[in-house]
């Protein structure tokens, strides 16, 4: 088989060196009753050509190539070819976690740059090397807040991505972290501060909000932070549209737990993406996941290494800050390449273009909420959203996300997203369908 670099003669030679005469003997230690006594019921291996053919046949069954107005946590942004050129280099693609610093400085320095840029974007002091995604970063942040405050309760805004909230519930369930939700203002689509205020109490470890929120609307994070702090709770700030950081004032949150998919990470039917958690200096030792730090080698050269490992499972086992081990390094590298390519000017211009595109579409339709929105908004089509989408599909456009599924009270509305990749002509077609 092409992936196995041995001839049968070499196999025999090696078996002989082991004092064995048959490959079977290698498995003698497995008792018969534990052995599979038949071949696997899987077809024989196929050629590369057939593999390529097969996945092409699957790919064409998907809508990947059509213009689309779906956002809702996963955004279509252009991926500069440099990104894949970099992550395709075997030295990045096929290396392991950089435990051996002396032959991993490449990966280590890219993570150090990643951590730095996340701090610059979020206004935090320290960021970890990545989490699985935004949805798992949020519960990890909540657990972190509980450790920091010694409190258990979490208050999460209903305008946070519904699936993030579901994951939070799954994680919280057995850690006695009671999770309660607070509402949004039916007018503005922003969080309902009275509801939040009412639910805040001395048991609450953290208040969790997302901005732009699931409706695409920018929240007043500072105000929320003040309110949370006034009750001794921490503010956890999450985001799923990272491009917004190019233009939005960073929150003065205590913990930022977000999703970086917008940074040159393809939608890929929902993953792999890259989550991240950033926080303030004083909370660093409560961070989950890997951290890269700067130090020097015995010759005094600048060097990098994984650090503060005493937080982690391989050292601390059941007392670690999290059970995470493998993270999303290569995907975080995509984001790193993207951010360095776009840089200071580029990220801002990109954000401004997204803003302009979405507001053009917004100006042609009727946004449901009055709050300021970034690159997506809730629209009220005249007809059933599903019906509208069917019509759009006839013009080979993938429409928006009907919201009833997640927000029964928003039945009849749909979430529409526009990015720098959305063409005006397609937006005009959507406007028509919504007219």
């Amino acid at each position, binding site marked *: 088989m092409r992936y196995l670099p041995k001839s049968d003669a070499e196999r025999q030679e090696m078996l002989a060196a082991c004092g064995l005469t048959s490959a079977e003997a290698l498995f003698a*230690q497995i008792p018969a009753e534990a052995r599979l006594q038949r071949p*696997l019921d899987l077809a024989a291996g196929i050629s590369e050509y057939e*593999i390529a053919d097969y996945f092409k046949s699957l790919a064409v069954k998907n809508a990947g190539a059509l213009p689309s107005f779906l956002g809702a946590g996963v955004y279509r942004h252009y991926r500069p070819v440099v990104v894949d050129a970099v992550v395709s280099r075997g030295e990045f693609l096929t290396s392991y976690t950089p435990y*051996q610093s002396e032959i991993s400085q490449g990966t280590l320095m890219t993570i150090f740059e990643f951590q730095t840029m996340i701090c610059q974007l979020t206004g935090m002091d320290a960021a970890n090397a990545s989490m699985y995604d935004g949805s798992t970063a949020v519960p990890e942040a909540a657990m972190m807040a509980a450790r920091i405050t010694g409190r258990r309760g979490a208050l999460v805004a209903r305008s946070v991505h519904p699936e993030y909230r579901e994951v939070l519930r799954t994680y919280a369930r057995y850690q006695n972290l009671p999770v309660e939700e607070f509402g949004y203002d039916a007018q503005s689509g922003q969080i309902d501060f009275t509801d939040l205020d009412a639910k805040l109490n001395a048991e609450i470890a953290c208040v969790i909000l997302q901005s732009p929120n699931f409706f695409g609307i920018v929240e007043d994070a500072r105000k929320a932070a003040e309110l949370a702090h006034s009750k001794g709770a921490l503010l956890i700030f999450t985001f799923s549209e990272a491009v917004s950081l190019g233009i939005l004032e960073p929150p003065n949150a205590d913990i930022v737990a977000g999703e970086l998919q917008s940074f040159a990470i393809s*939608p890929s039917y929902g993953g792999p993406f890259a989550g991240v958690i950033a926080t303030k200096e004083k909370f660093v030792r409560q961070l989950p996941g890997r951290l890269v730090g700067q130090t020097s080698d015995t010759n005094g050269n600048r060097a990098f290494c994984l650090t503060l490992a005493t937080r982690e499972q391989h050292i601390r*086992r059941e007392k670690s800050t999290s059970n995470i081990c493998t993270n999303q390094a290569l995907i975080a590298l995509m984001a790193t390449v993207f951010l360095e390519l776009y840089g200071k000017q580029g990220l801002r211009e990109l954000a401004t273009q997204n803003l302009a595109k979405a507001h053009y579409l917004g100006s042609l339709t009727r946004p449901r909420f009055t709050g300021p929105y970034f690159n997506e908004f809730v629209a009220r089509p005249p007809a059933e959203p599903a019906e509208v989408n069917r019509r759009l599909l006839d013009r080979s456009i993938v429409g928006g996300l009907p919201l009833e599924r997640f927000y029964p009270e928003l039945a009849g509305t749909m979430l529409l997203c526009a990015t720098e990749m959305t063409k*005006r002509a397609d937006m005009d077609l959507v406007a028509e369908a919504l007219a």
Partner: protein
Amino acid sequence: MIRKVRSHPTQNEDVIFERSSPGKIGYQLPPLDVPEVDPAAALGNEHVRASIDGFPEVSEVEVIRHFTRLSTWNYAIDLGLYPLGSCTMKYNPRINEAVARLEGLAWAHPYQPENLSQGAMEVCARLEEALCEITGLDAITLQPAAGAHGELTGILLVRAFLESQGNARRKVLVPDSAHGTNPATAATAGYAIHNIASNEHGMIDLAQLAAVVDEDVAALMVTNPNTLGVFEANIVKIAEILHAKGALVYMDGANMNALAGMARPGDFGVDVMHLNLHKTFSTPHGGGGPGGGPVAVRKHLEPFLPTPRLARSAGAFTWDYDRPQSIGRMRAYYGNFGVLVRALAYILAHGGPGLRNATVDAVLNANYLRHKLAPHFDLPYDGPNMHEVVFSDERQSAKGVRTGDIAKRLIDYGFHPYTVSFPLIVHGALMIEPTETESKQELDLFIDAMISIAKEIEQDPQMVLQSPHTTRTSRVDEVTAARKPILRWR
């Protein structure tokens, strides 16, 4: 004598922020085809940020050079043997990268209508089928993003199942040879950890196990073959002991590379397990991730699997969200789909017989290393091993040289080190897993290197203690890094 590498200049490179100068750009956007919008007007002044302090400003060519240069500071599978025990660093086939980037797959949106997602869903369906057949279990979820995430999923499944039986119980048993994620996971799931010591064969001691298993035990987390590379010969009895008390057997499948096609956890009593697609199924580690940690279960645990579940209705695939007993969601969307594509491509390439042959070669390589190195390094457990072998530095430490030092010296010889100081039950462990994608030539070079280092330790331990000597970065001061953490550039 070092035969595998020679020294050559590698480019230095500054941290990107030091290359930056105001006005350099590496991007261009298409002209805006809609009216401009004033951010302050649209979002409110208070919400609009000033420019991002310290953010880089460089050109495209500098970005390409930056990362190309950095890449040359890394070791990688593409360069040679990467014998990290427990990590299964095998060759990552390039076709897998190609198919994962097909537009229809890479640009599929998780919320696009199901009738426009049948191709992506077929990937999940075929992978689920294949993995069930390989594990011998009845149902599987592809949601978990990595092994530890799979462990948490699995233990939450155990908990939900036991709860449905009326008692979630309090304890999870974890052998002292287990990976750190096991106890960390059980704790995260709200269980108390009870460690159980391995016997002189590096296996779970039946008598001791029987003694601790009671109605308070929710599950045993067993790694099989365990982290010593030893198959738990009594696994069937172990399962009986737990099942007898209504407890479940969770298997950490990180070492499936020793079993695929040879033995199936479902056939030897395992109730629930995770797989590491980024180990057994060749998806690239990428410097730390991404991974994939599907969790397979027996029928009785199926109702509790995370939502949504892939289902078929009227000849089409659909996502089933109506799962009243489910533990809920483990993450947004459906899993690390791009990783699933790669794993399926790998399984299709090998096929059933091929997976078995790969397992044979993986175990053969590890046994070959054991036989060749045993005369030179201490073997704390000298029974037969499967896909990996664990030595100890007992002999070398007599000269003051520890496993970590031998590892650094290996770097001078052109190899990535083995896993250092794990499993914990072996004092000064050298944990070596070659995988099946290593040629005899490469293994022989590694054996020569190890033997040569053993000799060097006899003659000049000091030299080994100061290694590596040939790398662009000499030994790194990790202590200061932790004492005075510098976690970002300023």
